[in-house]
């Protein structure tokens, strides 16, 4: 019986959901003011004050979506994230390709790129707020600075690692500079780009939420900030959960694109050879 039920490939998703439910149950048991006597805090309702209560968190999320209160905030945060992600990726790709193919320029800019990358870029948020105002663009700018460098370094590396034989072969087959870029450098860099995109999705969210946190009138980060001001821990957790869910969705879209575009890559365990 257990042999059939234990986690395996077929029922993995079921077990993953079960684990989530178990986490929520544990959370509920440990924070409920009435279920267990207080064993850490001196007051049995303090656990709920500090860690929230899952049923109230879920209820909050339910209310948000049924009353439609969250949509405007979620929309703003998502727009900021997607814009930061798209602009950061495209510019990282462009600059990465350019610098990888222009050795003199990349040697010249090398210390500046390193400096810009090691700078804690979150401190730019207040400056961006001054430059771009409290609307979405200051958050987009912050997200772009986070996403750009990750994509840039990966593309740069990807272009540097193009197989010299494949390159020589394409040249012998008559590819000109533009065709080399389009048909050799770009596809060769894509595997590196995709590995960076998974990290970038999360960072694009960091950019928009931190931006909202520091000054905004809309967005999930703004909701969380408001709730924190009134010590409404349940709403804070609700905001975190909603953000996590949407970050997962975005990451899933990236994974989907990756599967479509990277069909040519050998997968581990694939033994289809003839």
């Amino acid at each position: 019986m257990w042999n059939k039920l234990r986690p395996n490939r077929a029922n993995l998703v079921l077990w993953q959901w079960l684990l989530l439910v178990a986490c929520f149950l544990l959370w509920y048991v440990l924070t409920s003011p009435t279920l267990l006597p207080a064993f850490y805090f001196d007051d049995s309702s303090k656990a709920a004050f500090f860690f929230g209560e899952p049923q109230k968190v879920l209820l909050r999320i339910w209310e948000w979506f049924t009353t439609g209160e969250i949509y405007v905030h979620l929309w703003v945060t998502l727009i900021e994230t997607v814009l930061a992600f798209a602009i950061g990726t495209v510019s990282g790709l462009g600059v990465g390709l350019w610098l990888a193919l222009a050795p003199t320029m990349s040697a010249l800019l090398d210390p500046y790129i390193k400096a810009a990358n090691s700078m804690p870029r979150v401190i730019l948020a207040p400056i961006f707020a001054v430059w771009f105002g409290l609307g979405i663009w200051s958050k987009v700018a912050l997200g772009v600075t986070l996403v750009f460098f990750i994509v840039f370094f990966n593309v740069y590396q990807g272009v540097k690692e193009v197989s010299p034989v494949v390159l020589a072969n394409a040249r012998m087959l008559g590819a000109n500079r533009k065709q080399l870029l389009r048909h050799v450098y770009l596809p060769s860099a894509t595997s590196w780009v995709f590995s960076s995109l998974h990290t970038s999705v999360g960072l694009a969210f960091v950019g928009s939420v931190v931006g909202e946190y520091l000054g905004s009138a809309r967005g999930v980060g703004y909701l969380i900030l408001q709730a924190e001001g009134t010590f409404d821990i349940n709403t804070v957790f609700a905001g975190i959960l909603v953000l996590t869910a949407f970050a997962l969705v975005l990451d899933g879209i990236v994974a989907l694109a990756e599967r479509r575009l990277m069909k040519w890559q050998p997968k581990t365990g694939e033994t289809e050879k003839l």
Partner: protein
Amino acid sequence: MQASSHYALALDNITCTFASRDNRNARYTAVKETSLFIAPGEFVSVVGPTGCGKSTLLNVGAGLLQPSSGAVTVFGEKLAGINRRAGYMFQSEALMPWRSALDNVTAGLAFRGVPKGEARERGEEWLKRVGLGGFGDRYPHQLSGGMRKRVGMAQTLILDPDIILMDEPFSALDIQTRQLMENELLELWAAKRKAVLFITHDLDEAISMSDRVVVLSAGPGTHPIGEFTIDLPRPRDVAEIRSHPRFVELHAQIWGVLREEVLKGYQQQLTAV
């Protein structure tokens, strides 16, 4: 020197010296004052010990590498940049892994702006010719080493180059597949009669396929030390020709010259370690 306009490919007095990146004074002369002339339709093999600069010579002929001195002439014209009349079959994996077999075969046509439909048709035809009809939509990693070599062959030959440069193209294959591919190559060559410069370290392969075998000395400063005309009858079967008395005779002759160089090259590798 002979007028180089009669030749498909003329490497005249080529010297290639590489300077070390870290130390400008550390130089290595891979090829020294080497001349090699290949007539149109001639199959020339170059043999030599490993690491003697055979590939360097081929890259010079392809225009991928600028010689330090000397001139490269292609059908009487001085070569500048990539050799547009040559096709190159590489020793290692050279297919674009993100293109399917068919797209790899038609890559050269696409680069030249041949319409898609026509390129596809010719690609399918070439895939069939190298025995891979129906494998067009597979990616290189889904093919075996021998199949990838066939795709590479089709990729090079579909452009109908006047000169074919081959850098130990079959060295990674097992002996059976290798003989099969050698025969296929000879057949394709016999039909079109292109100039071939074939680099190998396998003397059997060189003799069984070529019109002429050039022996290079061990590096550094590689230069030709012997040239043999292979007067074996054609068409040949690479497996059968090996028992031909003339083959045995030629093999003994060439090996007599090559042997010393191989030992020299081997010694150098030992002392270098």
